[in-house]
């Protein structure tokens, strides 16, 4: 199913999204980009995967009690996404903001398919989503990503490691296998989805420079203070951050 199944962006604002496996550094890069855009006077809104206040409680319960099947896991994330889209992303785009989304429907395309959900079904599921103006894929070798994850945070969680797939009883090994398969899915869809591929094994500075160049080249005319000037007097040009950064 081609990318055109997503809805065209008919709004004033633009949509920039980042994708990549856990530990690819995409969230870091997106916050740096948002910072940059704000400093230029561009109104920015930020939305992270799996952060809808309406759905959070259900997702938390499902994860805690390990209640999810591949289908319900897929559906609850789509519900979360729909809520953020309907209540936050679309209104902000209508208002002319550049919306920065940490993960987008492509995360589901990759993850849910690895979990065994049908490829066509999950693509149809997200058909209501708006097609991003720019999609960045932070491509990183599996071992680099795993090194970052294991070195950085505390324990890897059950569903992050894809433990529900029964790939391995060792959580690190399961994580490795699961993320490896997701990486393959991302690679396979990169061209079809028009991803801008960033080599995420390079330095943070180099990646950010590349990202900003692409944003300026592709969306330059839409950036900067909105017509009629920047924020009203006394209001700092900051975008609201909704939810916690996605992992």
């Amino acid at each position, binding site marked *: 199913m081609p990318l055109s199944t997503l809805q065209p962006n008919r709004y004033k604002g633009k949509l920039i999204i980042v994708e990549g496996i856990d530990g690819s550094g995409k969230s870091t890069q997106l916050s740096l980009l948002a910072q940059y855009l704000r400093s230029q006077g561009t109104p920015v809104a930020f939305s992270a995967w799996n952060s809808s206040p*309406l759905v959070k409680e259900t997702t938390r319960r499902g994860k805690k009690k390990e209640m999810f099947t591949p289908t319900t896991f897929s559906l609850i994330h789509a519900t979360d996404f729909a809520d953020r889209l309907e209540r936050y992303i679309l209104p902000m785009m209508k208002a002319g903001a550049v919306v920065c989304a940490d993960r987008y429907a492509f995360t589901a395309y990759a993850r849910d398919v690895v979990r065994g959900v049908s490829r066509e079904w999950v693509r149809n599921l997200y058909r209501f989503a708006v097609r991003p103006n720019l999609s960045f894929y932070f491509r990183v070798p599996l071992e680099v990503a795993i090194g970052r994850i294991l070195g950085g945070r505390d324990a890897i969680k059950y569903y992050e490691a894809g433990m529900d797939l029964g790939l391995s009883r060792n959580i690190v090994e399961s994580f490795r296998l699961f993320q490896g398969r997701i990486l393959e899915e991302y690679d396979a869809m990169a061209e079809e989805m028009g991803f801008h591929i960033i080599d995420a094994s390079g330095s943070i500075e180099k990646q950010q420079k590349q990202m900003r160049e692409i944003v300026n080249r592709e969306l330059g005319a839409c950036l900067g203070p909105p017509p009629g000037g920047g924020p009203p007097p006394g209001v700092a040009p900051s975008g609201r951050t909704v939810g916690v950064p996605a992992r």
Partner: protein
Amino acid sequence: MNRTPLQFFGDPLPDVDLGELQGKLIVIEGPDAVGRSTQVARLRVWLEESGHAVLDTGMARSALAGKGIQQAKDGNTFGPVTMTLFYATDFADRLENEIIPALRAGFVVLTDRYIFSIIARAIARGEDRRWIENVAGFALVPHVVYYLRAGVPDLVARVVFGRGQFDYWESGMDLGMAKDMYDSFVKYQAKLIRALDSMSERYGFVTIDASRAPDAIFADLQRSIAQFFSDIKLPPAPRPRRGVSAAAVQAPSRRAPGRRTATPAAQAGMSVR
């Protein structure tokens, strides 16, 4: 479209062996306040008395999503796509964790609403029909879908005389069609009925005139359901009354497309699947 009972309508659920399923899946559909839950409760008792184990289930009752849906409804903050998908999540959880295990164990599953209500609500809210039909494609084809159909005035009467007040969501207040719940209820339920009617033929609904007394509806359901069980004796046929023949089991309106009569003859043709 797949029509064999206990097959998937569309893309299959991962990890389900359909060969293991042996129960019966019976769906009661219809608009709000039409009397579905009353009928489900009576059917359950009747089937259990006949020696059949029954699982009854209905919308927003899943362990996973039931609470979340209730909270979202309480806050009146449901966007249309979010609502559709939250109900789809709830349905999937019940299908995988209740309905399929019960069918595997040979239960009769009586379900108060199925994917058709989810689809109808999405259509009433202007969502793309093909999108939601596809999303709901993991549902199992039921043995039979009874569509309890009544006109909006009947539904209004049941709300007024029955529960005594209009409900925000049953009135479709989120659609912003009217200022008060009565006006909105009338418009919204008419939309739902139109949407259900539009699915009737495609999904082979057996339409039952639910503007009648509960006893008459129950008798029709019993007669029809008995066809699926060799060990259930049909209750004595009702004495014919003026204006109500055996063919009372049919769409009360000319608008219902593809209506099927559930006269014994028609049923015999339809239920041997």
